[in-house]
């Protein structure tokens, strides 16, 4: 079914797809797991990882790498008996998602919206930090170059 707004026809799934790049929805996180070494029966199965806020950031060599969509904590070296929620809390107790401590199915919309806000803020802070670092480095290099040429 399509919804019409003005003259444009927007496919309805569009509204959910906007969340995908940020892995905000559990379903989208689940779909990132291309290759995961643990079976669905283990305590850190793909479903449980996605529930605890992790999306896959692994590579061919390191398959068991996952990152939290809120605090961006990246964890690897998972073992089949690990509990994703516990590990998440242990390594990133400051994470808003860990603090809420409930899976998406128990999250109210208002909580989700607030979570999205903090995710976006964290992303912005991260990007700013990265840019500042690279800029500072570039500036230093330029300055050194300038000084060296003068001598």
């Amino acid at each position, binding site marked *: 079914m399509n919804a019409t707004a003005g003259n444009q026809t927007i496919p*309805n799934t569009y509204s*959910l797809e906007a969340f995908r790049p940020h892995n905000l929805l559990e379903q989208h996180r689940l779909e990132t797991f291309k290759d995961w070494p643990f079976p669905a029966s283990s305590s850190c199965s793909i479903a449980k990882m996605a529930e605890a806020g992790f999306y896959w950031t692994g590579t061919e060599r390191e398959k068991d790498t996952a990152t939290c969509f809120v605090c961006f904590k990246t964890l690897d070296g998972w073992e089949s008996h690990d509990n994703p929620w516990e590990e998440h809390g242990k390594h990133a107790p400051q994470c808003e998602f860990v603090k809420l401590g409930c899976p998406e199915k128990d999250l109210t919309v*208002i909580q*989700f919206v607030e979570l999205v806000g903090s995710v976006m803020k964290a992303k912005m802070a991260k990007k700013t930090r990265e840019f500042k670092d690279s800029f500072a480095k570039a*500036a230093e290099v*330029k300055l050194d170059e300038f000084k060296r040429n003068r001598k």
Partner: protein
Amino acid sequence: MPRTKVSKNSKRNREVSNLEEKINNFERKVDVVFNDMDELEMQFISTLDTRIKSLTLCMQVDIREMKMPDFIDVIVDLVRFSDFKASDHTQMIASMSVSQNTTDGHSLGVGMGGTVVSGNRNDEGYLTEDSSLGGLSSASTLSAFGGASSMLKSAKALRTPGPLHSARARRARRSRSACGDMSALHSARPPAVVPSSSASSRVSRNKMRTPMATRPKAFSADRNTPMGKKMSRNSSPSTPPVAFLRYPKPGEMALSKFGSPMVVQAMPDKFANVNIPIRNGVLSLRPKRLAADEVETDLLQALDEDTLNQIKTLHANLQVIVNTANKAGLK
């Protein structure tokens, strides 16, 4: 007469100070960039905060308190939050649980679902003969909830069954006056009722609650009292809810919510007409014979040369149409 000696910098000295100056300049510029970055970040964060705040404000309470899986189901069919009707959703869940119950073989559940729906429809939040009936039936419904785990979901959606709930679920009640229609026109939202956080986790109603405090109040669009301001208005005059909704249909009345001028490009009616914008308004010609003395002379003053030329062209065009029609045998 002695004078201050201006020491001439040696070439080397000059170069050093020049160099230092350049370096200082560079460092200052780098600092400026960093400050700009900080400022941009702060700006982003404050914009984000406002956006989120306005987003939460324009969401109905029922949506805000909804669980994510339900919301994901609902949002797929929504274009705007305001399109969401809590009562529809409640009914949907109720009917879902009814079907669940029938498959489970709970005959009690069937009757219950039916009463909830009818309670919602008839009950308007006032204690009338009708609603007392509905209230009673929903009270009995509440007792019917006991233990049936499949009902929990609908119980949560119905949170406080009874007259208060239905009044809330159906959006605000409005007086059935002209302004009632008006507020429906621009889909103003009723004052938000914030349920206490404890209420969401409980099925039954809090005993110690003052009923009037949480009750949605009737309001009209043209009321501009402090109460009207308190209403969780999802927009302000400077930020209209949406850039564009649609043009009014022919014959439809359009009202500006905040008193700003409006662009109305509606056909005045379903007959041929000519509208000519002139200096002091619009010259609207209707298919009714116009006597020569009806045209006042000061009308011509409001016409400038361009407009007059345009009218002439229009006249010629109309003449062409009339001629063609005549030739085709239409009379």
